[in-house]
């Protein structure tokens, strides 16, 4: 039952309206960071305050919510946000990717292909891809406005000069519809090619007060050099539990002697595969 002390999905209606306007603007200008008046949420910054606000503005009573943290449904961050919306919005929740209408995610895109009736909400720590290259926000905004993105390649150049290949493995910068360079939030670069998808993708950064978005089937190109092309990399193993060779893997240390196993980071995908094998 909904906790009646709260408005539906915690935020008041005016705030949700403000956030929806930011989301619509973000969808109209794919990859552009729309400022919004981020509210204090009952959780610390860095725990997904941006994603939670976007989810709160997106949810309707008939929605089914799934929350994942690094692909898993059962980690602290995922459990607490799921409980938060169960209590404040009384929406149905699920761990099955295909049953969900709204999926809030931290740092992963589900392995299962998403469809047109789904919304994927990302939690974003630092929305500005140029932040560590150019510390001045006034300057980075100007660079976005004037499409001056040479500096982004300087970062990749430095990677190759130092490591012999592009060593950036997460939060890999992308160019959206040939215009804005965007930080895809710290998803592994393995997930970058999946961003051209049927579902709507919304990005919320609470502390930085920015929302940006990708409409369905938006063209998303990962930046690279002609002679050092982009590569979606993952651990070379297969999943130790379900045997999948095409999913992103977590390395799990199993004892103090250095034994380890590689398992799917997407727990729902892994479980479904194992159920299928058992049947």
């Amino acid at each position, binding site marked *: 039952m909904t906790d009646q002390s709260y408005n539906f999905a915690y935020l008041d209606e005016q705030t949700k309206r403000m956030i929806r306007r930011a989301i619509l603007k973000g969808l109209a200008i794919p990859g552009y960071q729309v400022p919004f008046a981020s509210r204090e949420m009952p959780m610390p910054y860095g725990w997904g305050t941006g994603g939670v606000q976007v989810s709160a503005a997106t949810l309707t009573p008939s929605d089914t919510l799934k929350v994942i943290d690094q692909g898993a449904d059962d980690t602290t961050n995922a459990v607490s946000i799921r409980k938060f919306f169960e209590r404040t919005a009384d929406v149905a929740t699920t761990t099955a990717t295909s049953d969900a209408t709204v999926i809030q995610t931290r740092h992963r895109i589900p392995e299962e292909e998403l469809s047109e009736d789904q919304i994927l909400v990302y939690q974003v720590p630092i929305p500005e891809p140029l932040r560590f290259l150019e510390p001045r926000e006034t300057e980075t905004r100007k660079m976005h406005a004037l499409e001056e993105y*040479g500096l982004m*390649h300087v970062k990749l150049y430095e990677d190759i000069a130092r490591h012999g290949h592009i060593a950036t493995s997460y939060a890999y910068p992308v160019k959206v519809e040939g215009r804005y360079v965007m930080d895809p939030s710290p998803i592994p670069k393995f997930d970058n090619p999946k961003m051209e998808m049927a579902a709507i993708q919304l990005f919320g950064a609470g502390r930085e007060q920015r929302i940006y978005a990708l409409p369905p089937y938006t063209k998303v190109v990962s930046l690279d050099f002609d002679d050092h092309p982009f590569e979606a990399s993952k651990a070379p193993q297969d999943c130790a539990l379900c045997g999948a060779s095409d999913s992103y893997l977590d390395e799990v240390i199993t004892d103090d002697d250095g034994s380890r196993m590689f398992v799917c980071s997407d727990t729902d995908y892994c479980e479904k595969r194992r159920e299928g094998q058992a049947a």
Partner: protein
Amino acid sequence: MTQDNPLLDVRNLTKFYGAQIGCARVSFDLWPGEVLGIVGESGSGKSTLLNCLAGHLPPDRGEVIFDTRAEGPKDTLTMSEPERRMLGRTDWAFVHQHARDGLRMGVSAGGNVGERLMAVGARHYGEIRDQALDWLGRVEISESRIDDRPTTFSGGMQQRLQIARNLVTGPRLVFMDEPTGGLDVSVQARLLDLLRGLVRDMGLSAIVVTHDLAVVRLLADRLMVMKDGHVVETGLTDQVLDDPQHAYTQLLVSSVLQV
């Protein structure tokens, strides 16, 4: 690019800081391949003038007409910001007095040189690196230092790296603000030698602001002497230095210490 037009045509450039004069009614032409020196004491408006010319400061009055490659003479002050910034990373170069202001200290030497190339669309790592190596060689920095950060370089090396970074896109006009300031004399001599060679080889036009008369004697074809925001004397460098007409220029020339 036509030879009939000056590369840079400055008319009545004026900049006030409140009631204070920054520089007043400065006019001159700069022709392709010419090096103009601007000398004067501290506070005479040299740097203000240079920053106004390079688009870093908005002047209050005047015109700065640059002979652009595509569209011929154009006032850079009324130009749109994207155009001006594009000029700033293609046809123009700005060498700061302190190399730290002009370099990215957290990025390797190669990355610093390559930045302007990548900013104008170079997307081939091998070629960018080859050009960076070529330019490090031209400014006498060992190839083995290409992946080191400028923080590990000496002052003179940083200054040379800054020059390489600026010249890599083959600009036509270079603004230099005290390029040898803060360097010891032997390093200054090498840097001047290098600059003179590059200016001659590449046919660069340059505007050099300095208070060091030896620098302009070596580099500049023409000289402009400034005092309290006004230009008090102009002429060929040797003519101004050997036969100064204005009282202030005479003072300036006679103030140089003889060793």
